[in-house]
């Protein structure tokens, strides 16, 4: 294998990993703040991909132009789910909200199938299939675009969490919800908004995935596993750690791809996921959390 192929692959992996970090951030925020494993996160991601595709097909809105709208729609849809479905269960322990989220995942898959059929879809844009060639290195242009968008949104989320009143409430609720409540923080509202923010991240990331890959109503579960791996690598609730975790996972998966074959990428990811979980369950980059 030539050096150019190796470098192209590794850069592609890092860029794609950074792209996926955006979706993992949503999962990480919800788990870090609410201590809820949102097993429906993959379906929010696929929801974003469908929204991007239909906005283009029905209204001619380019998915990149409509990203903020897609995030907003996902957030608006997710808010009542948390408020009315998950919130009453949070005080009953970890199991009830997680099982509810899994039920929601199955329901959403079926809703997508009923509404959109089980057909394979992809968002068709010419810029999403163009290569970016720099010397002898070739990477997919959409990976670069996705990475840039992902970094911008992750920085914005960081600023939201670290520099705003909502962020202060969020950090307080994440640290000690009881004490935060006593201090006047509306913890339930913070939880609902965090859940909505997580869904928005998933939706925006899902649109980018729909541009680069194919998707079906049940594709979300595969991305959920990747998101878990990124989250564990990056550290629970660590915003920039998630980005680094995504890039690291992408790099390692690409290394696995070029050495063992593309078919072993997922295996590499899962081995890393389980390995890190066994050795350092709080995440590889667990310091400097929310």
């Amino acid at each position: 294998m030539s050096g150019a192929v190796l470098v192209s692959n590794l850069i592609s992996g890092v860029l794609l990993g950074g792209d996926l970090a955006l979706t993992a951030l949503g999962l990480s925020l919800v788990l870090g703040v609410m201590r809820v494993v949102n097993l429906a996160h993959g379906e929010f991601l696929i929801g974003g991909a469908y929204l991007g595709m239909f906005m283009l097909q029905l209204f001619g809105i380019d998915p990149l132009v409509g990203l903020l709208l897609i995030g907003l729609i996902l957030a608006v849809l997710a808010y009542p789910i948390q408020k009315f479905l998950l919130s009453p269960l949070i005080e009953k322990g970890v199991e009830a909200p997680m099982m509810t989220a899994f039920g929601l995942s199955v329901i959403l898959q079926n809703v997508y199938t009923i509404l959109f059929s089980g057909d394979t879809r992809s968002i068709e844009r010419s810029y999403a299939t163009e290569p970016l060639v720099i010397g002898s290195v070739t990477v997919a242009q959409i990976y670069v675009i996705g990475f840039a968008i992902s970094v911008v949104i992750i920085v914005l989320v960081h600023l939201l969490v670290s520099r705003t009143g909502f962020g202060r409430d969020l950090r307080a609720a994440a640290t000690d919800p009881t004490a935060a409540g006593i201090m006047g923080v509306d913890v339930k509202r913070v939880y609902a908004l965090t859940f909505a923010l997580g869904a928005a991240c998933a939706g925006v990331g899902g649109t980018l995935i729909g541009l680069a890959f194919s998707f079906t109503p049940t594709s979300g579960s595969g991305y959920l596993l990747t998101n878990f791996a990124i989250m564990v690598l990056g550290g629970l609730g660590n915003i920039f750690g998630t980005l680094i975790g995504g890039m690291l996972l992408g790099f390692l998966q690409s290394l696995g791809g070029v050495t063992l074959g593309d078919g072993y990428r997922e295996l590499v990811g899962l081995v890393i996921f389980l390995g890190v979980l066994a050795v350092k369950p709080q995440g590889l980059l667990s310091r400097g959390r929310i």
Partner: protein
Amino acid sequence: MNHTHQGTSVFARSAALASSIFGILAVAGAALTAPATAASAADEVVIGAPLPLNGPLAGFGSFDQWGYQHAVDEVNKAGGVTIDGKKRMVKLIIRDDKTDPNVSASNVETLISRDHVTALLGSCTPMLVNAGALVAERHKVPMVTGCDPLGAFTSVRKWNWVWDIFFDERELASLAFKTMKDLGIKTDNKMAIMADNGPDGLIVGGKVWPMLAKENGYEVVANGSFPVDNTQFTSIVAQAKNAGADVVMSDFVTPPAVALRKQMKEGGYSPKLMVIEKGAEPVQFAEALGPLAEGILVGGYWDPSFPYPGAADLEKQFEKDTGKSGSQHIADSYAAAKVLLDAIEAAGSTDPAKINAAIAKTDKTYVVGPVKFSPEHTSKLELVEDQWQNGKSVVVWPANRATGKFEFPIPN
């Protein structure tokens, strides 16, 4: 956040619990989406089928569902099947196997034990068909299926109760080579092979294509085997591009097929000829890819232009019923159901052994061509080479079946 330890333990517990309840909830999900069918009326003949209506193979399942249902509707419209001298309506129960062999097998168990089916129709692709077929075989309930390449079907066991109408994957594997040779296609004789690790993918991509490449003077510069749902092909695409392979031979279901084609374009790789068996067949492939589907070759076993009774009408009826373009899967599913219904009629009984014996005697031309079963319980379909041109599937080889001219090379 100071609750690192608390968050960790919560996360660790959550992860463990997630995996343990995953299976339970998956079963619950399957039950949630299964058709709510009451016990069948006594005067109905009930047949059933598991089909992939969700998951990566959903693109096939929707066509199979229509083919099965259309055959049953036709029979019912004509008064039903004759059992013990009395006409009885046929009821078809379809259960979604979600592209999961385990669900497919449990669906067949349910169809037999709860729905009390008289006979069965198969799912689609070897991993799903074979999983359900083994259950049918164990219960001695006759099953007629399409969508299971004959080599993968016969390699499982010697069948007594299951019958397969489809193509031989070894012939399919040689199809592109025959097409290139017959049409005098000139390339640099460098080939990249990519296939999934399903039963048919392992045979075609792992054994037959490398052997045929050697026999036909091609150098295999890249060869990869992938999980069935893999959608990441960056490395092998770069490898094939770097080696300058003019020909790509691949065998995937539709979601990876779409992802592969997009990633080839994203990676700046433009081979002159590309074959995507299996996944490039449904119209969803062309719809998802748009112009990128242009020129892609895929082996076919049916086209409405075939000179068999009802071929053109079947396509028109599908388009009328659904408003969508057809697929060859409407034909093998329709034919399989017709073979089963004809056998029930010929048996004049719901006795499984009598129906099975009647299936064995099938010797008739159906919409897919002549159907007559071999001692291995297979009936082979003829093959043609299809190519996507302007969003339509066109038969380009052999000459006596061609409905369009072969397009070469693939537009860049």
